[in-house]
């Protein structure tokens, strides 16, 4: 799965434009990630101009993220 550091996100939707599984989308006034759809491809990380997305390969549940994972 990925985490988005919302502090720094410019809501450009670059991530959702390249996401092959529709796992990320603008909801309200911020980007939301749907980890059940995520396939850990990392394309969103590479497309993000603000560099606020981090990938945690193989993790499906937010509870399993390392304690220093940033949401912003």
């Amino acid at each position, binding site marked *: 799965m990925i985490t988005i550091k919302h502090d720094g996100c410019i809501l*450009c939707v670059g991530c959702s434009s390249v996401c092959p599984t*529709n796992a990320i989308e603008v909801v309200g006034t911020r980007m939301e990630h749907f980890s059940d759809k995520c396939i850990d491809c990392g394309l969103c990380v590479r497309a993000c101009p603000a560099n606020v997305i981090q990938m945690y390969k193989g993790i499906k549940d937010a509870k399993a993220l390392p304690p220093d994972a940033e949401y912003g």
Partner: protein
Amino acid sequence: MTSKNYDYDVIVIGAGPAGSCFSRIAAGAGLNVMVIDKRKEIGVPVRCGEALGLGEIIKQDLDIPKHCYSLVVDGAKIVGPNGKAIKWVAEDTRGYVLERKFFDKWLAELAVEKGATVKTYSRATEVLKDEKGKLCGVKVTHGGREPYDITAPLIVSAEGMESLMARAMGFKTVHALYDVDTCYEYEMKPYDHENLIELYFGNQIAPRGYVWIFPKADKKANVGIGIGANIANGEKRGGIKGADPKILLDEFIEKDKQLQNASSLLDFGGVISVGAPINEFVKDNAMVIGTAAKQVDPIHGGGIGMAMEAGVMAAKVAIDAHKKKDFSKNVLYPYEKEWRATTGVTAAHRLKLRKVLEKVSDDDFNHVFNSINEKDLPEIMNGKFAGPVAKILAGRPQLLAALSGLLS
């Protein structure tokens, strides 16, 4: 009159330039148009450089109000890796540097004045199909509240880059990393300019892209960069190698005598499509217009003019389909046919040019800049490559292999 089986004649998803121009024309012809836009405020946040040629505004006979643009520029200054500048100023190079947040809202207001209904903060979450499997509407949530259904025999996706509903309708709108540029941009002040948009090329400055300075009123300017999203110039979070446009933009600003002392008034950015349009724009009961259909110039990434044009083209066909009470793919196809025969041809030339330029080294790029002049630029941009290419090859025949793509 809307058929009693449907809430509206057409649902438009997205109130950007494409959706609003479509809606203005369709509503003006008497169609019952519903436009939904997921943003709280139309046009916000701004995600682009805000430049638009005068052409489309003139063609659509629009009288753009003063608050919707910042400046009218005369043309462009294109700067090569070695700093050589070519100025391109002609009657058809004049353009606006817009205030997108006002411009988009104004276009939406024009649609409202013609009778369209616009709803903001309203996000389509899924497409609806009738018992026969025919597309018939979308599920909408207003600001995250309980979703409700709206129905129409025609759904138009004018969603821009993300185009999630277009995907749900079966269109192949996912972008490949290779075919997008990732962009970062500041609005800065003060910047003295020559009333020209400025574009800076070079693999050191902006690999597979360019830095732009679009002047605005009161000594302000949009200073931005777009680079190929497949470039790996930086380290992204988590140690992944990837494109970091902000690093290069900050370097450019640091080296620029004026900008190094300027302030930033706004951080923004986005991604732009620089690839080919999607393989089909219409299906039964569905159309895709504007950036959602990747109708964007692959050289400069500009999409406002094309979106407005496609909106009008598609609306005329939709009006005809409404008269015939037939929204099948065949009836909607004339929009796609017209686009591909007109704007599509120019876009294909530009894509060819982009794919050649991205392989050219800075040294060769300098040679290209030294070989051509302001008279060659319009020819190159219009796809008449033979003359300029001959000039370039005369001084450096070894470039033949690199440039041969332009001659086929």
